[in-house]
């Protein structure tokens, strides 16, 4: 995946999210006080190779060895052949292009139209194998100098994904951060042949469904839209996911009308609803200011239509905060 890796690293915008510090206090309520909006260096991209290596290790050795450094152990050097990798890559892209053209005749995304129109529940991300983990990027505040650690690996029996780590709200000593302590898991945007940007179209669904098992900590679910406008690259829609803890699987249903709009990590005064026709990625963030270990086990993530849910948008704009909207 050499070509893809190089392309991806060049295509991502490494945007340094401005810290909510004394230098810019006037941008509004510091509601979501963390940098989950910026896709910075992907911490666990080499983590997938290390997790394959360590699946036979003992339980304790796991957590020390799955550090996000690109160290290959000497006995398991994979075959690196640059030309072969590039050739494979090109073949793969052409195959995807062919599939894309052929699927266009069958129906949207290769499924017949009646199936797509009548579908009410769709599984978007599932965790049944290691290749499913590759679709996610895991970040923590290590990228800004903090001390939280986060890892992603397959759960038991390869039936779920386990996101675990330690949160530390010790602020990095860089002179401008007042607070810190967040961990995030973000999905990669869907790509077509030749890494063309694609988006999810969930316009016929109205609720997000997650089957998770947590440890009682509150998480935040963020949805990003697919857009070409640069000003909108750091904007996302978020809502909270409260885990119960305990040995039972928990089904979390969040209607899309509940997601509030935030820009660069701060909630905006002018709210409008999430439009579902071009969704790029979804992410989970933990930043609850409590130091300690955490874990979240995810079974699958899907979207469905809840026929009983008729609300369009949960937050109305207030004339005090936005007099211009009410003229």
């Amino acid at each position, binding site marked *: 995946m050499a070509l893809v890796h190089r392309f991806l690293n060049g295509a991502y915008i490494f945007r340094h999210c401005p810290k909510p510090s004394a230098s810019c*206090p*006037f941008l509004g309520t510091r509601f979501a006080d963390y940098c989950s909006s910026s896709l910075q260096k992907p911490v666990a991209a080499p983590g997938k190779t290390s997790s394959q290596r360590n699946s036979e290790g003992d339980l304790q050795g*796991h957590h020390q060895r799955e550090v996000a450094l690109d160290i290959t152990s000497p006995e398991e050097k994979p075959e690196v052949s640059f030309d072969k990798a590039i050739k494979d890559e090109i073949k793969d892209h052409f195959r995807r292009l062919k599939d894309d053209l052929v699927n266009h005749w069958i129906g949207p995304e290769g499924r017949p139209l009646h199936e797509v129109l009548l579908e009410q*529940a769709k*599984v978007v991300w*599932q965790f049944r194998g290691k290749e499913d983990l590759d679709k996610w990027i895991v970040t923590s505040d290590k990228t800004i100098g903090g001390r939280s650690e986060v890892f992603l690996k397959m759960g*038991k029996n390869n039936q779920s994904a386990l996101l675990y780590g330690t949160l530390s709200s010790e602020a990095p000593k860089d002179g401008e951060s007042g607070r810190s302590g967040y961990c995030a898991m973000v999905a990669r945007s869907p790509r077509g042949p030749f890494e063309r940007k694609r988006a999810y179209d969930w316009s016929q669904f109205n609720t997000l469904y997650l*089957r998770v098992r947590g*440890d009682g900590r509150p998480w935040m679910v963020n949805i990003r839209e697919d857009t070409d406008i640069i000003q909108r690259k750091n904007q996302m829609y978020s809502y909270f996911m409260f885990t119960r*803890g305990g040995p039972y699987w928990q089904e979390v249903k969040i209607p899309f009308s509940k997601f509030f709009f935030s820009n660069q990590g701060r909630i905006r005064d002018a709210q409008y609803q999430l439009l579902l026709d071009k969704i790029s990625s979804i992410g989970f963030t933990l930043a609850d200011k409590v130091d300690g270990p955490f874990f979240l086990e995810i079974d699958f993530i899907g979207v469905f239509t809840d026929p009983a849910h008729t609300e369009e948008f949960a937050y109305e704009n207030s004339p005090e905060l936005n007099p211009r909207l009410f003229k």
Partner: protein
Amino acid sequence: MRQLRLREVKALSRSHAASWPLGRNSNPRRSDSPRKSRILTASLRAAVPLQAPRGLHCSAAAHNSDSWLVPPWPEPRKGPTKALTLHEELFQQTLEGARDKANFVRAVQNFGQHNVHKRGHVDFIYLALRKMREYGVERDLAVYNLLLDIFPKEVFRPRSIFQSMFIHYPRQQECGIAVLEQMESHGVMPNKETEFLLIQIFGRKSYPMLKYVRMKLWFSRFKNINPFPVPRDLPQDPVDLAKLGLRHMEPNLSATVTIYQMPSSRDSTGTADPTEPHIVGIQTPDQQAALAHHNPARPIFVEGPFSLWLRDKCVYYHILRADLLPPEEREVEEIPEEWNLHYPMQLDLEYGRSGWDDYEFDIHKVEEGPVFAICMAGAHDQATLAKWIQGLQETNPALAQIPVVFRLAGSTGELLASSSGLEEPPPPEGQEEEEDSQQRQQQGQS
């Protein structure tokens, strides 16, 4: 209270006298007052050049002070080199008293008493915000209102359109926002008094007031969105905390919580005796029935400890579960039709009108073996859990015939494999597992 050395007082009064011509001294009363602290605080106003190098080394809050207008006096500093921030002496006085709300309030009021013009109030407010956590008042709204009260009123309100266009008194507005922000991060909702204070100090169109409006709006919107609320004041008693945690985890309301063992020596030392930790368990009637029907040929496992977070406290629990039965052994209980002649006990109606009425996900959900009971104990070793099993046997007599295997692993919070065994050693009898499980626990629960 730290007694001032004579040379320190002399140095301070010397610099105090030296800054006379600058016209910055507004406190005529100096050495007349009997309390040394008054000398210190009064002369600190003018002795800012003395404090400035100290401030640079110890805290970052001195940067924003408006007393930087005084040019630094190049006098060498004598006296004990204690790195204290400006005004920190006010909080030092209460060292002999307990760090509680009354002392905090007294320290804050001491600032205003001998300092009519409230010089350095911005610094003082930042310092007080930092000290709030030590004094345990970070969630007290009255204290935040008191801090906002330190600001001089009506001075920072913009009076002309040009003043309101530019950020009028930016440092003070930042300070006001910092107070509100600390309130927000601790989840304290401001009240009418806060609003009145903010209007009096900054005016209605200021940024602190805007933040206050936003806080009121979003706090009230998100106040009750937690479907599993945990009370803010968690019980300190470990048994009560365990009961709360177990009830939090178990969705079935008909479950019964049983205390199998209370911590001993509660009255003598106040801490739980390590040999007799508390054991609290929970079990629902469905789980009891399932355990009674469990095949004695299959072992059941005690797994744990797993972590559960209640606000900011982490408690650990263990579960008693069995492996999933392979599909051929699963039996579906059939209720014969004659059981109830009034209405059918089982209905298999197709509710879907057509293809679009299928709301099920096209995925095989993760299935795991049934959980029979959950418990929270003070210690995580096999002896304590064995006591739990013995206590469970009283209500579940079938447990006596079923072999119990203890699978105690490190506390990473992952629920263990049922059958794959990739990362688990093959489950031996309880004895052999105990040694390496205890080692792993000691490594894992550091």
